[in-house]
């Protein structure tokens, strides 16, 4: 009993030590919890893998090689990660304004179908790529912005909570596009020559140039999404509008008092959030698929929630979190092939990451992380003494 207590204290001390080193190495303080959550999830995942009779190190080694084992793997992992950046930004931006946008799933679909529709318009093939590609990306961005803006308007006009309305709008667009793409009579957006339900292919001039012929293809949409991350970081941290967004998120009453148009900020933040998801979808339509299929973005919006929370809604950290997320999914097939561990195990690990990030008290307790810049109410408590 005493021994166990001792060992526990020892582990606690060792963890504290690791934590202290990280503190010094990492200046982005709130991200510790995320790092520990990832670590912990892999440990628990490893236990799961050994229960099914596989050496977890073998499995993880295969996973790692699947993720970053060679040029093709790395390119594939990055390609897989790119759209997650957009869907995570969709949560993160609204989150700064105090809104919980869980509608990225629908905003991706709205953006994707708009981009595919515009890309397949007959006159698109007459335009050069330098015009056609931006048009498709802008169309997708607008589609997402409209679908994201609606819950913002509903919130300000009727008080309907965005969590409810985004869920409803997710269903609406999901079944809406499914019908539009499936229906043969009348034909709405279905490519009648195709055996599978999908839209007409977009014009060749509207295809984003390829960077690496990996699986999936790594295309130049990467730069659009990396760019938008930096833009969002700049807007939130350096601009007057970003200041308004943050103020509304932290204290809407004080914002109203200080003359900020709270309703305008809410609508704009929701529309911007939707726009990021729409851009991600358009970049995939243009660079990867070339047409729209209803199942393409399945779960991508919900994964975005996890990624954004893992990155603590920091736009730059989102790039790292999305890369981790995408490459885990991209590396999982090799783990299945070599170690005979189902791809679903990776999904379980990801679910645990989210769980530990959301319930960060568990992580804080296990790793003795003190409350720092999380809650303003507890901020001044203990850290000063260290």
């Amino acid at each position, binding site marked *: 009993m005493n021994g166990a207590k001792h060992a526990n204290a020892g582990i606690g001390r060792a963890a504290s030590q690791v934590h202290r080193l990280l503190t010094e190495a990492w200046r982005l303080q709130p991200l510790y919890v995320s790092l520990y959550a990832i670590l912990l999830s892999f440990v628990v995942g490893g236990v799961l893998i050994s229960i099914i009779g596989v050496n977890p190190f073998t499995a993880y080694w295969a996973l790692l090689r699947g993720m970053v084992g060679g040029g093709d793997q790395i390119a594939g992992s990055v390609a897989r990660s790119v759209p997650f950046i957009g869907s995570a930004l969709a949560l993160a931006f609204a989150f700064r304004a105090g809104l919980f946008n869980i509608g990225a799933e629908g905003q991706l679909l709205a953006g994707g179908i708009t981009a595919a529709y515009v890309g397949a318009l007959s006159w698109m093939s007459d335009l050069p790529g330098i015009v056609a590609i931006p048009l498709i990306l802008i169309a997708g961005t607008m589609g997402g912005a409209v679908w994201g803006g609606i819950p913002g308007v509903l919130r300000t006009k009727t008080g309907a909570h965005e969590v409810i309305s985004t869920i409803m709008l997710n269903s609406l667009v999901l079944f809406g596009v499914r019908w539009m793409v499936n229906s043969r009579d009348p034909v709405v957006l279905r490519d009648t020559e195709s055996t599978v339900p999908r839209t007409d292919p977009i014009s060749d001039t509207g295809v984003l140039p390829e960077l690496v012929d990996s699986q999936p293809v790594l295309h130049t949409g990467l730069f659009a999404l990396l760019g938008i991350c930096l833009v969002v970081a700049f807007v939130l941290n*350096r*601009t*007057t*509008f*970003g*200041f308004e967004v943050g*103020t509304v998120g*932290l*204290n809407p*009453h*004080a914002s*109203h*008092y*200080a*003359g*900020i*148009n709270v309703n305008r900020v809410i609508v704009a933040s929701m529309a911007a959030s939707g726009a990021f998801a729409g851009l991600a979808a358009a970049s995939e339509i243009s660079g990867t698929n070339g047409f729209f299929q209803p199942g393409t973005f399945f779960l991508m919006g919900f994964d975005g929630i996890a990624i954004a929370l893992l990155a603590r809604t920091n736009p730059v950290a989102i790039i790292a979190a999305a890369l981790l997320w995408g490459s885990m999914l991209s590396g999982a097939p090799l783990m299945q092939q070599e170690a005979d561990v189902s791809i679903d195990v990776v999904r379980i690990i990801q679910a645990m990451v989210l769980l530990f990030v959301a319930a960060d008290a568990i992580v804080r307790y296990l790793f003795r992380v003190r409350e720092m810049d999380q809650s*303003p109410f507890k*901020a*001044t408590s203990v850290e000063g003494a260290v």
Partner: protein
Amino acid sequence: MAQASGGTVLEVEGITKAFPGVVANDDVSLTLNQGEIHCLLGENGAGKSTLVNMVFGLYRPDQGTIKVRGEEVHFEDSGDAIARGIGMVHQHFQLIPVFTVAENIILGNEVTKGAFLDLDTARRQIDALAERYGLAVDPDATVGELSVGEQQRVELVKALFRDADILILDEPTAVLTPGEVDDFFEVVESLTGQGKSIIFITHKLREVLAVADRITVLRSGRVVGTTTAEGATQQSLANLMVGRDVVFRVEKAEADPGAPVIRVQGLRSQDDRGVEMVTGFDVEVRAGEIFGIAGVEGNGQRELVETICGMRPATGGRVEMLGQETTHWTPRKIHELGVAHVPENRSKHGVVAQYSIADNLVLNRYHHRRFSNLGVRNTAAINVEAEELVEQFDVRTPGVDATIDTLSGGNQQKVIVARELTGDLKALIVAQPTRGLDVGSIEFIHRKIIELRDQGVAVLLVSAELDEILSLSDRIGVLYRGRLAGTVDSAHATREELGLLMATGSSGGQS
């Protein structure tokens, strides 16, 4: 009205309760006799609610003892208090609107037959209680469809249903219309007539004198007096409640008022629940004068200020500033006209707790050209401005980058005042500018307000501190039930006259 009193049913001795940064109750003692109505009187924040929440088991005292019928008790939660026969009717009702009256009353104390609710028995018990105490309630009505007065009766029956002998009523009349208040008093007296004992919390003096047997006045967490209703007048109670023996005399020259700057006519507005709180308010404030608005809290001060400043929609009347009608303008538009506003609620409206002192100092002008180049924040200029203001307003802080919640209340208020009192001001609206501050900060803020007046700014000062009103104002108006009850020249104003106006709404004795 004094009842044949039995023994003491409740004794509170030397209770102290502190919350971070504030001592809510400081060595408070109180006794309640059987069949007595004991009024607990005091301003908002005086510690009344904290005290009764401890008696009802919602908080635990840091020091002191509570005895029920001579026996010392240590309540873990309100269930323990209910078991000892204590019932409480909260200011905000704890009813479920979609349930019926009977369902609400038995909730948590269900009358059952096997695994099923026995609503018939419950109904009969409720009818019996209602008849006995003159509390007309229909057990089958849905609570959401009842008037506020009826819902309050349901709360009372709910407490009685749990066999409460000691009833705590937290501001029960705050939500009632005058007619309902009279009915309510009849009920209260029928309750004490049958041996129930009541602690009645209020800050309305008229009501206290109408129903109380004894009165305890709290101020800043301390008991400042206990008296009988016979020995008290509205005036003496008002003095006890708001008064302070020390008068802070502020040095100031004679006012030199100019043209009217703020003109309010017949203004009406509602609180968040839709109750009309400003009921036809008129005032005119001229450049270079301080118009003080005195009044017992809860008479519409908050709604008045927020409506004038554009934060709350006016439901009637008009506001004019600098000759322009601003009744339906946004807060920003009004501010840009040169109207500053020091809000009553520091943490809710005044600051963003997680922001730095610098960002809080530019909270209302972060978008001005000086601080924003084409929409990009000019942090250097913001910091320079912040350093200057911190120096000028003597804010005690290690640096302008520190978050504002690291500052004391007084220094936070200095930040707000620094922000609001800077710039090209024409009018200043200040609400409770020195609440909870130390003497030094109070003097400093008072000096700044007078300085602005001398520069020709029209100042509208709303304060619950009569001394503050008396020492700063050039003219004084009393806000009573949402309208101006009277205006006096501050040179001739006496505490007594103002106290009476505050309490009754008229200076000629009882209304």
